[in-house]
């Protein structure tokens, strides 16, 4: 079965327009993300992963080329339309407040609710499903500040699920988590991609886990950006020069990164 392409970028150039000149971060980026797949975005600090995510999600305008989300340029969606196509999980902390996990997840229904934000029976069913799919039903009545980092990430993912969008983009969701939590979070994302036919893109620094648990990888390096399934990328020796200097290298025999 041919899977549907959700997000695609052709000859994309990303960067900033500062005063008169434009500062180019990366050019000629070609990316294709399909429904039902989990894709990791990896690269060294400062290489421009955040800029790429901002451009792909329509927060930042591309310098050249275009980003198509469901066959329409991402910048041409109105904010309410975009909210029905794309859900985000951000790294920033939630502001202090009284929100319970249930309320937090229910806010994902905002693009669909009336002017007062009242939940219909259908909305409530979708919220319960999202809580169930992320295994956090038992947390529904906890306040968001009472959660551990791992539980909070799951709650934020449940919120993104409740938003009912074909594409979910997560910015470094595994940061601050311990190893078992990192692994279970990525397994959860993989399960959601498969079972709910979501297109999920996340950025990460947990390279070994990303290699084991992602369907596809986007490697961002100074010279070029490559996308592919992990085994293909390993064959192509795409992990060479991922980091500047010689201190960390990819060991093709064990398929892990190690300190030289």
């Amino acid at each position, binding site marked *: 079965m041919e899977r549907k392409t959700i997000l695609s970028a052709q000859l994309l150039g990303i960067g900033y327009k500062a005063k008169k000149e434009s500062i180019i971060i990366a050019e000629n980026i070609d990316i294709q993300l399909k429904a039902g797949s989990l894709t990791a975005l990896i690269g060294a600090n400062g290489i421009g992963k955040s800029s790429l995510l901002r451009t792909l999600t329509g927060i930042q305008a591309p310098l050249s080329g275009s980003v198509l989300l469901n066959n329409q340029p991402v910048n041409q969606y109105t904010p309410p339309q975009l909210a029905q196509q*794309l859900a985000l999980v951000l790294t920033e902390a*939630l*502001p*202090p407040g009284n929100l*319970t996990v249930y309320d937090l997840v229910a*806010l994902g229904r*905002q693009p669909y609710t009336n002017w007062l*934000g009242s939940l219909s029976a259908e909305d409530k069913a979708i919220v319960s499903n999202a809580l169930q799919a992320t295994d956090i039903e038992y947390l529904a009545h906890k306040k968001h500040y009472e959660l551990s980092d791992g539980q909070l990430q799951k709650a934020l993912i449940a919120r993104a699920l409740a938003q009912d969008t074909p594409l979910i983009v997560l910015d470094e969701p595994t940061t601050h988590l311990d190893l078992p939590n990192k692994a279970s979070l990525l397994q959860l994302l993989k399960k959601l991609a498969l079972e709910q036919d979501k297109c999920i893109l996340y950025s990460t620094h947990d390279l070994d886990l990303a290699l084991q648990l992602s369907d596809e990888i986007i490697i961002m390096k100074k010279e070029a950006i490559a996308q592919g399934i992990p085994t293909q990328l390993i064959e192509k020796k795409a992990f060479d020069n991922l980091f500047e200097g010689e201190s960390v290298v990819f060991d093709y025999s064990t398929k892990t990164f190690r300190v030289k």
Partner: protein
Amino acid sequence: MQQTRLHISLFAALGIALVALFLVDLSFGAISIPLGDVFKTLTGGAPAKTSWEYIILDYRLPKAITALLAGIGLSIGGLLMQTLFRNPLAGPDVLGLSSGASLGVAFVILGSALLPAALGVFFTSAYGVVIAATAGSFLVLLAVLAVAQRLRDTMAILIVGLMFSSFTGAIVGVLTYFSSAEKLQKYTFWALGSLGNLPWDNIIILGLVLLIGLSLAILCIKPLDALLLGERYAKSLGVNLNRTRIVLILATSLLTGCVTAFVGPIAFVGLVVPHMAKLLFKTGSHKILFTGTLLIGAALMLLCDTFTQLPGSAFVLPVNAITSLIGAPVVISLLISKKKGIFS
């Protein structure tokens, strides 16, 4: 479902308390009037003494209604500010809105001599004072928001509000230096704050302006809920941030500006009442918090007004003193408790 039932019973309890406090406020004062007679007068009957009818209808009723409206305006203003600034200690007085309104009023009362005669007459009228106070708080709020955009630290925003207060205070100080004794006296009386002596015309203006402010606030209930996740999440949920900010600022300026214009600067109500609502209803939903804050604000202000008139004596305390006596300890205890949900 259990939560909904709890909220409904809380609303009912607050509603009953509000009516009771309203009647008690009418009954207390230099002359105590029995509650039965208060009730009789309000329903069109004749109380035991005819003088009581005058006292209630011409003096205490307008004062109680003013207290009720002022409580609503300041509290809802505070609720909007706390969510917009993601800061549990935000409030009309803390962020310098009341000072902005004072500055507007100071300009029209103290500076009216500088305006052409016809304009001077307009601006010293009730309408002029409302417009000046609203414009004053709008400008201060816009300035605070512009600075707040550059600050991540929520506590720093409070310092900025404090700076704006002292800045506007200094301008008022300069204005008073150049104005006549008569105008100065007028301004000083206003600045002390009083719920009484407001003619019915002005109460109607106050009510109408509050109605506009509250309607704007109700339109923002859904984006306010989204803002509980922070601005970037709100944006990703389709909220038009710029429009929401402007509508919220306008609503808050109308609510606090016009209350300040008519009753003077009143401290702490806008800061404390939303907290009481959040503690009582234990929810983040602005639909619930809006109604709760409205009821508690009205009830608390009536209670404060009742305390200003010591029973059996002709002595009346300034209402600002009462709200500060209640408000300051509450804020300090909030700071000390440092509950993670409130300060993290």
